């Protein structure tokens, strides 16, 4: 017990209480999302008990078709994780490679890639997503790809700046002198050394990707075959006056998830950046 207590205190010191709580919430939500199919009621099962207020049987009530809202929220976690992690991974991969290449190679490569980054940076995200949805249909995979494809420039800019300063370090010069190839220096020296802020920014991106997807679903542009928090909020809109729990609970889940992700991302950027953490200590 004592050991567990000490572990907790160490973690709390490292992370701060808020982010520790965020981490715990995120872990619980992830577990709930992964194991949801094994313990929740069938989220698609329709029953005659429509618009039931929260009861022991249905802790978050039922919706217009008599489906259990809590089950739907838990299964919706999977969508949130899929969208968040998928988009953030795609965005950081693209951003790291393109930004790293631009900063490391410099010259015309940098000019070209920087302009590309700027072009993507000025694109209005939401309108591009609406365009993608109307072109390819409301498919969750396209949504993830589209979110990744419009958010990578931020990561690319961070990585480019990192590469610009890292390539002047002695260990990168030493790598050149020891006969390492350009790609080896980029992938084994520059990127591992400069990835920390990209990770932090990607953690923040997970939260915003989930919000973007929820926004799309709220507008009715989400994948109709998939349960998503945004879609649930939209469905509950019509019943807001007499069954507010239909929108309230998915909205709460969304806020908690996005807030926990932001707190964690913010803390991560402090932990991974020793200069910042020194100031806050």
């Amino acid at each position, binding site marked *: 017990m004592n050991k567990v207590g000490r572990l907790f205190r160490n973690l709390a010191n490292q992370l701060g209480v808020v982010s520790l709580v965020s981490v715990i919430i995120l872990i619980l939500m992830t577990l709930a999302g992964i194991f949801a199919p094994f313990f929740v009621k069938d989220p698609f099962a329709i029953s005659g008990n429509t618009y039931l207020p929260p009861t022991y049987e249905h802790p978050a009530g039922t919706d217009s078709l008599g489906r259990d809202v809590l089950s739907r929220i838990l299964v919706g976690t999977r969508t949130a994780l899929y969208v968040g992690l998928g988009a953030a991974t795609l965005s950081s991969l693209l951003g790291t490679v393109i930004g790293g290449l631009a900063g490391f190679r410099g010259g015309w490569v940098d000019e070209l890639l920087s302009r590309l980054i700027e072009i993507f940076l000025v694109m209005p995200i939401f309108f591009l997503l609406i365009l993608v949805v109307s072109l390819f249909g409301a498919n969750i995979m396209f949504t993830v790809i589209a979110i990744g494809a419009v958010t990578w420039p931020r990561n690319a800019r961070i990585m480019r700046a990192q590469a610009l300063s890292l390539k002047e*370090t*002695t*260990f990168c010069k*030493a*790598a*050149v002198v*020891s*006969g390492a190839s350009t790609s080896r220096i980029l992938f084994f020296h520059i990127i*591992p*050394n400069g990835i920390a802020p990209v990770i932090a920014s990607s953690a923040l991106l997970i939260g915003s990707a989930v919000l973007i997807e929820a926004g799309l679903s709220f507008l009715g542009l989400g994948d109709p075959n998939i349960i998503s928090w945004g879609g649930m909020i939209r469905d509950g809109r019509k019943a807001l006056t007499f069954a507010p729990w239909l929108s309230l609970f998915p909205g709460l889940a969304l806020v908690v998830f996005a807030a926990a992700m932001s707190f964690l991302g913010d803390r991560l950027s402090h932990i991974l950046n020793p200069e910042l953490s020194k100031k806050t200590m």
Partner: protein
Amino acid sequence: MIEVKDLTMHYKATLGWVKAVNDVTFSVDKHESLGIVGESGAGKSSVAIALLRILPQNGVIRQGKVLVDGLEVLSLPGSTFRKEIRWKKISMIFQASMDALDPVYTVGHQLISILRLHRNVSKKEARKKAEAAVGRVDLRSSILNSYPHELSGGMKQRVMIALSFLLIQPSVVLADEPTSALDVLVEDRVLKQMKKLQGESDLSVVHISHNVSTILTMCDKMAVMYAGEFVEYGEIRTVFRCCAHPYTIGLLKAVPSLRAPTEMLVTIPGTPPSLIQPPVGCTFAPRCPLAAPICRETTPPIVKLADDHWVRCHFARDIRKEDVHFGTL
């Protein structure tokens, strides 16, 4: 062994060409070591950069030949040079060598990956070789599992020495002020270790330093560099006793001696000239106490004073140490 002939390297700057290295010629045999001394901005590090072809984008090698073990390497295609020459034939110890280890990998990982980059050996063999190499510089093999930040500056420097001298056993090691970031005690230890290894292997060492006494203790030959060119070159004792370039004399007089009678240390007034528009004639003339009109008009010839000693000065044959007077502190 390494032979360098008429190496000239310039940097392009907004104001014109910076003539950083001009007609540098030297050769270092197996087991031999050459020390290049000069003040900051004299072009010492540029020589090393040119030899390894790690020029910045604005650097251009204008002319010259570099022969490593008889093979001309400056004209080799880039990829061949990278695979066959870098570290295999010419390795380098950096000015701030402790930063030459990548902070995200263990020391062992870095040694092993360099070894495996150049030699076709298994991971196990590579690890054994890496252990042997750090053992030779008196480090425990357990440091291979450490990250660079867990080691002290001196230990990191010794890792770098193991890395450059022992791991691949190159023909030439360029040591660019390897001890400038260390305190004197650690410096002494590191230098002794380098000297020991230098004696034990078939290496040629080019030692670059602004510290004349380091060069005097470490090297067999010495070159004095000023404004991008060698102004005096020769066997170390000959240069020390019979130095004939006023700049060398000034440098040597600026070093305190333990045994000689107490004397005021001298300073050479002024600063090195602009390398974009070097002075006409002798580059040192503006600061030289013996400068005559001829020095400001014609470039001094190379005057051979002995088989292994030459000086770039109009009055090389007439100058004696005692006649050169600089200001004192």
